[in-house]
């Protein structure tokens, strides 16, 4: 681990976005625009059952009545929803049974991203669902996991192979009426991952989904549904990157988690969508609805996110703590550099008795970046014994950036204990000079200081991701001081 850290600190010399390349892959792409016919085309392409098409159409009709939310502390340029391609998938051969059937260029792309599709090449202990634009390309270790009864596959496969499970859970945590982007996603979602951990099973490996946007002018709308049955455990990771382009691209995802009695789900994200250039041109608009429900007693859902990418991030991974004694956690590091904007945080809804939640948010702003924490802690009347602890820290690098904190508290139970702490600090010249005087360059010093600041959150990530995240933090902030 320590060796990796050194390697990272030494390797990183340029601040370029490393994943900005584009792969020339034969695509099955529909024309731009959004209407009911487009939704039928998407549904048809995926051979979906009638009920799912109905779900999409209902969502679409609802979406048409909605307006883009303006309450966030973000400047969102107008988005022309008719100017987006809603389905673009790498062309598949009839039915790719083995890796040999996958376009070699696709394999190369994921190799380049450090996500080899061959199981033997991959990090031991991590199963990957690789998604490019609108389709899942390959899910590794599916068979190995199936031996323990675990279902891990693309969302499309799940609709085909486990329709009852999908029907039972989809939209129960994030209904399509939830918000503008959730409605849009519910209408046009193309792929994503599905995961079901049966009763009493502790998932033997990390599950992960890697999202890649590749095609131009497309939006990515994926759905992830993760169900942890009684007494089960799973740790799930997601990563994402996109090519560098002058145009903005839209990413609007939904993640739903269900944790039954005594189940535990850890959900980690390293978000590294293209953030746009130094002048703020291009970059991904990332509007994501993530929510989990602790349905069962003693269940636990823990969100950890490292948000370094995207031009705009709008994201509030939340927990509904319905089961008695259930626990929700949110650990976040969000970086905004250059012209990036982030409005991110969480909602902890305490419904059950003795429910506990912890929020640790670390914002880092540099350049002209604007970083807002927005968090709701809500304790319902019957949530006796509820406890929340929130800590929101902001770190400023430079004097053109901004950090904002918007905590909301709604407590209807007298006995609930809710604590909130907030700090704002600047990276001091003194700290940097102290490092310089020990022979550490300014860039490396910033990396050290920022990683130190974010350590509490990074420690929550699975190790492979923690290393990646440290590296990312350092790269994201290069050139931001001095």
């Amino acid at each position, binding site marked *: 681990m320590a060796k990796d850290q050194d390697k990272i*600190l030494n390797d990183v010399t340029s601040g370029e976005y490393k994943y900005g390349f584009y792969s020339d892959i034969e695509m099955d792409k529909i024309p731009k625009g959004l209407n009911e016919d487009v939704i039928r085309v998407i549904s048809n392409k995926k051979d979906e059952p009638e009920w799912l098409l109905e779900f999409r159409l209902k969502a679409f009709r609802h979406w048409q009545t909605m307006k883009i939310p303006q309450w966030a502390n973000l400047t969102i340029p107008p988005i022309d929803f008719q100017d987006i391609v809603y389905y673009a998938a790498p062309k598949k051969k009839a039915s790719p049974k083995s890796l040999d059937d996958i376009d070699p260029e696709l394999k190369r792309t994921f190799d380049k991203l450090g996500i080899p599709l061959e199981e033997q090449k991959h990090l031991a202990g991590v199963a990957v669902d690789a998604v490019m634009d609108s389709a899942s390309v390959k899910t590794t270790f599916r068979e190995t996991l199936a031996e323990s009864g675990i279902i891990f596959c693309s969302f499309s496969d799940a609709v085909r192979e486990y329709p009852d499970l999908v029907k039972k859970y989809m939209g129960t945590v994030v209904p399509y009426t939830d918000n503008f982007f959730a409605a849009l996603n519910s209408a046009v979602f193309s792929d994503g991952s599905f995961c079901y951990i049966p009763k009493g099973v502790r998932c033997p490996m990390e599950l992960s989904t890697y999202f890649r946007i590749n095609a131009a002018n497309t939006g990515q709308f994926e759905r992830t549904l993760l169900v942890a049955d009684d007494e089960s455990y799973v740790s799930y990771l997601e990563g994402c990157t996109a090519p560098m382009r002058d145009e903005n691209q839209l990413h609007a995802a939904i993640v739903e988690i269900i944790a039954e009695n005594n189940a535990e789900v850890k959900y980690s994200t390293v978000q590294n969508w293209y953030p746009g250039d130094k002048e703020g041109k291009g970059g991904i608009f990332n509007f994501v609805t993530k929510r989990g429900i602790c349905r069962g007693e003693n269940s636990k859902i823990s969100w950890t996110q490292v948000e370094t990418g995207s031009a705009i991030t709008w994201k509030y991974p939340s927990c509904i703590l319905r089961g008695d004694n259930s626990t929700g956690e949110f650990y976040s590091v969000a970086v905004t550099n250059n012209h990036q904007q982030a409005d991110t945080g969480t909602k902890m809804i305490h419904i059950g008795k003795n429910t506990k939640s912890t929020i640790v948010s670390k914002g880092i702003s540099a350049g002209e970046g604007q970083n807002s924490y927005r968090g709701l802690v809500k304790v319902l009347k019957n949530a006796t014994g509820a406890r929340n602890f929130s800590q929101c820290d902001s770190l400023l690098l430079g004097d053109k950036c901004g950090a904002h904190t918007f905590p909301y508290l709604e407590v209807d139970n007298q006995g609930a204990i809710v604590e909130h702490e907030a700090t704002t600090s600047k990276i001091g010249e003194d700290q940097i000079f*102290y490092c310089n005087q020990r022979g*550490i360059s300014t860039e490396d010093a910033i990396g050290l200081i920022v990683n130190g600041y*974010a350590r509490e959150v990074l420690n929550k990530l699975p190790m492979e991701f923690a290393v990646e995240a440290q590296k990312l933090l350092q790269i994201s902030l290069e050139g931001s001081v001095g």
Partner: protein
Amino acid sequence: MKDNRNNTIMLIIKDLKAAVGGKTILKGISIEVKPGEIHAIMGPNGSGKSTLAAVIAGREFVEVTEGTVTYEGRNLLDMAPEDRAKEGIFLGFQYPIEIPGVSMVNFMKTAVNEQRKHKGLEPLSASEFLKLMSEKKELVEINSALANRSVNEGFSGGEKKKNEIFQMSLLEPKLAILDETDSGLDIDALRIVANGVNMLKRADNATIVITHYQRLLDYIIPDVVHVLYDGRIVKTAGKELAIELEAKGYDWIKQSVEKNKPS
């Protein structure tokens, strides 16, 4: 070219003038330090001692207006602070800086390996580094727990100063400048700091001890004592000068300087 470094002077400060925020603090300082020597720079508060340390270490807020600083034959003022450090200059800070969340292990391993890289050496592995760290911990009698905590975070004043000496022992500098390392130390901490300095002393390295009090010099015996007053070196002599200062106080120096000032 023949390397006759050991016979030459390590640090030559010549007619150095420097200002902070437009105000001249150093008004013409000349000092020469040879390998193997310990120099003490004494003087009342505000005389420019810490500014001198800052110039040698390369702090940006000090503006050098005149004069030269030559270190091992090179123009020190042209070098970036981290390069000075990698070339063997160490500053023991008067007020060591806290870096929350960064462990001492990670911090010092980065520092030591930067220096090794500079010298063309392989970086130390984690286990090699931890071994080195535990050796040095004993040397400077630093508490094991301190070394595992974040850099200076929550350390007491004395712990911070000991931690500076600990870092010095890991980096083995050629030229160490200790800026008021003795201030705020109780007698035990003072002894530990002094022991550290004495144990690290070699024929090929040098130390500049900046202090207000003579107390530290009971433990670290200087070869040369300079008295700095109002931005100038007003007296240079052997270790007996420190004792004289302790007995007579700085007023004695002030008066003799003021008396000799051209009117």
